[in-house]
């Protein structure tokens, strides 16, 4: 169980792993409003599950588990859409040091295309690709998904091929 105060731990982890939550939410939603809604839902689940955190998994693996489980079961709810006077989260793209503006635009375009391609993948393949792109090891991916490392390898190879095809403009069947 947790030794640190859950509220301060939650805030610390938010700083460290908030980016992962945002990426998962962007990959599983189409609009900014839905993305913000899903981010909030994921954070709510993190908050609820925090007392059960046993420390058996690393915080980053645990965060991915909660984020992906929530994203895969998330459904858009019209009634949640309410405009807050004060935004809870803001996303800002910073200029990349060492790259000129044309290179930055090109890089952003690649990432946008990646999101588009990921959204076309089956849900579990999308999860695998997200974990791969974020640099998780096979063992960590296996922990998040609950499958064997060898199965991660097989599935990831297939998903990477499909992703490559989608990035090259090839259509992806159902």
């Amino acid at each position, binding site marked *: 169980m947790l030794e640190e105060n859950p509220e301060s731990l939650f805030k610390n982890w938010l700083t460290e792993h908030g980016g992962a939550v945002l990426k998962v939410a962007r990959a599983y939603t189409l609009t900014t409003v839905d993305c913000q809604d899903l981010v909030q839902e994921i954070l709510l689940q993190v908050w609820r599950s925090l007392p059960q955190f046993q420390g058996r998994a690393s915080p980053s693996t645990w965060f991915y588990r909660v984020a992906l489980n929530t994203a895969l*079961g998330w459904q858009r709810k019209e009634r949640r859409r309410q405009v807050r006077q004060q935004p809870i989260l803001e996303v800002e793209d910073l200029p990349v040091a060492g790259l000129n503006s044309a290179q930055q635009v090109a890089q952003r375009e690649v*990432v946008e295309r990646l999101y588009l391609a990921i959204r076309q993948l089956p849900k579990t393949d999308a999860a695998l690709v997200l974990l791969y792109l974020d640099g998780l090891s096979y063992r960590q991916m296996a922990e998040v998904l609950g499958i064997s490392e060898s199965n991660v390898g*097989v599935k990831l190879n297939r998903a990477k091929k499909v992703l490559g095809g989608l990035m090259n403009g090839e259509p992806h069947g159902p």
Partner: protein
Amino acid sequence: MDPDNLKQAWQSQASQTRLTIDAELLVTELRRNQQQFFATIFWRDVREIGVCLLMVPLWIYRGMSQSTPWTWYLTVPAMLWVAGYMLVDRIRYTRQPPEPSESLRQHVESSLAQVEHQIWLLRNVHRWYLLPPSLSLLAFLSQLAWLLRSGGWWTVFAVIDAIVLLALCFAAIYRLNQYAVRTVLEPRHQELETLLMSLKDEMPEIH
């Protein structure tokens, strides 16, 4: 494009994205949401079980104050049965959502079990929810018809009207439940099964 280049572009872009979260506001919002969640669960249980239990003394009082025949009181065990069934079901299958920090596979499996149980419950709603009060009310109406048999055809028509009204009411409840199964639970069940299938072991491709 090479997957490793994509990975590099993804990570360098990610490192250049600044996410600013108002943690204080978020924690306040989360606390409010959690309170709403527990309130929703509490009031749903009160609505579903409490109403049945509340009906018991009300039913007894009405029966005594109107000196109705003994079959009127058969509805009391029927309502106790429905309330008890729901209570036992709540205890056996807690309605808390599956733990979100499980692995994806475990989460999908527990969600699937929960959805399957909900489908079973709604598909069999006529057995555990509709049949007991139907039988007790039918017995009451039959006894009433017997006691008022001197009314002749008028009594027969009145009792038939009451039975038809009751049947329509119960049929509507049944159809509403089957509609929920078809439109909400079955698509979710299929989605979860697809997810689970996609997590099963795969053989590597042979070239």
